[in-house]
């Protein structure tokens, strides 16, 4: 019990962020028309590409002779960039076609 309370106390900021973000995520897309489901999924897909920041950190802090970390980091950065760039570009392409009709 003691440790649980301590855990909450130590991470209270994170817990606030997580809980508020969950509500926000649900609220923000609550009334999306089904027309936009595909672009929205694609856009959200691009946003979780933010994981690339982790990959950049892995790579940037690796010692220049630490080849394993460098190799893993390199691949991770490439894949993360694919997720981000591909995600945003493909979403934009989809939405571009909607725009003309407006």
């Amino acid at each position, binding site marked *: 019990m003691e440790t649980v309370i301590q855990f909450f106390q130590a991470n209270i900021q994170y817990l606030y962020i997580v809980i508020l973000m969950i509500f926000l995520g649900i609220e923000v897309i609550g009334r999306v028309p089904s027309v936009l489901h595909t672009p929205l999924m694609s856009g959200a897909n*691009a946003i979780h*590409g933010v994981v690339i920041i982790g990959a950049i950190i892995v*790579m940037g802090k690796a010692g220049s002779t630490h080849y394993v970390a460098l190799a893993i980091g390199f691949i991770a950065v490439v894949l993360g960039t694919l997720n981000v760039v*591909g995600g945003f*570009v493909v979403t934009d392409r989809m939405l571009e076609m909607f725009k003309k009709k407006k």
Partner: protein
Amino acid sequence: MSGILSICYLIASVTYIIGLKMLSAPATARRGNGIAAGGMTLAILATIFLYEHDGQRLGNYPWIFTAIVIGTLIGATIAKKVKMTAMPELVSFFNGMGGACAALISLSEFGDLVRQADPASPGLLLPAGVLGRFLVILLGLIIGSTSFAGSMVAWGKLKGKMKDLAFRGQHLMNMVLLVLILGMAGYLLFDMTSGNTYLFYVIFAAALLYGVLFVLPIGGADMPVVISLLNSFTGVAAACGGFLYDNKAMLTGGILVGAAGTLLTILMCRAMNRSLVNVLIGSFGGEKHAAGGPTVAGTYREISLSDAAMVMAYSKKLMIVPGYGLAVAQAQHTCHELEKVLEDRGVEVKYAIHPVAGRMPGHMNVLLAEADVSYDKLLEMEAANEEFKSTDVVLVLGANDVVNPAAKSDPSSPIYGMPILEVELAKTVIVNKRTMKPGYAGIENALFYQPRTSMLFGDAKKVLQDLIAEIKTI
């Protein structure tokens, strides 16, 4: 300097929220996507130039930039070149890349963790203080790997390179595997010694296998739901990275997508009138053999091209029901042409769009928008069902399950309960399909055997072109 970095991350987080919000409305969607992309660029650049690890700036710039340039070139090229019909599998592919990225981060961080620990101590390898860090590394690994493997299977299935595979006891096996993964993770968390670090890699392999087995039995019609679910998985994996690096941009972005993705998944299920559990456990593809069900039999009527053209040309009101067949044949432009030809003759032409027509919700709207079909001609399901009664001709183009009356009448059908387009209310129904083969969900369609229905076989694009030529001669 780290103060500026925090501000950059704060701005990035806000852009994600605004971006998602704007993506939910047609008028602002594109701008919203741009805003989120801008925030992402800011966060990435700020990380490269401002992030400090143990008081040290990041190094290896040449490598980082090379990797980013490679990723950008490949990503942008694929995203620009891909056909609009291949959109769902592409989203799945990019999602898999994000999952793999998260898993790789965990692998590398685990290596660091082991290296920092004292190899001489025979007992617990980890000091108690890093338990939290190890926990998020494990979670990132498990969720990221599962998402990666699952997305790749979904991608392969949508590309048609992989078949559904369901075997007896598969769900039990998946359960056992999941429990095993979590058990190993829990054991490792509290009792890691220098002798059992290999378990971490066993978990990695098991999570990959779980991802494959998780998606393998789920039928094609449910694939969009699965992709959306895996999308939110990757969001959570990214959030694990946020805990790991105390990084608020990763945390907020990840959780936001995790929550929004989960809701989107539920919304999609609702459009098909099914529950998420039903989609995951019910495994559409596997059930059809077991259910057997009453096989629809009878004779169907074929209609000749010229007759079809005649019926359509002399109708007052015509409704087009586009489905995946139209998308595969890339016939959206030809379809728009037919619409114009008919309208020149005074026929009122509209489109009835089922929420899950194509292979993803909204897929048809994207395709028809590409072909310049006017927005107000697209009717959503409820509106369309109102209008079928007063419609002379319904032209079903490569759609099947979304017009299957079994969804309303046959409780044993796997799609029972899914709202459908009630095309049988119209005076005449012309169905264009390539063959009599059942649709994506693998079930027979009684509509084809009804007296008002006639079949017009052939590739959607070819048939539409021929119809246009015929109508012009009338």
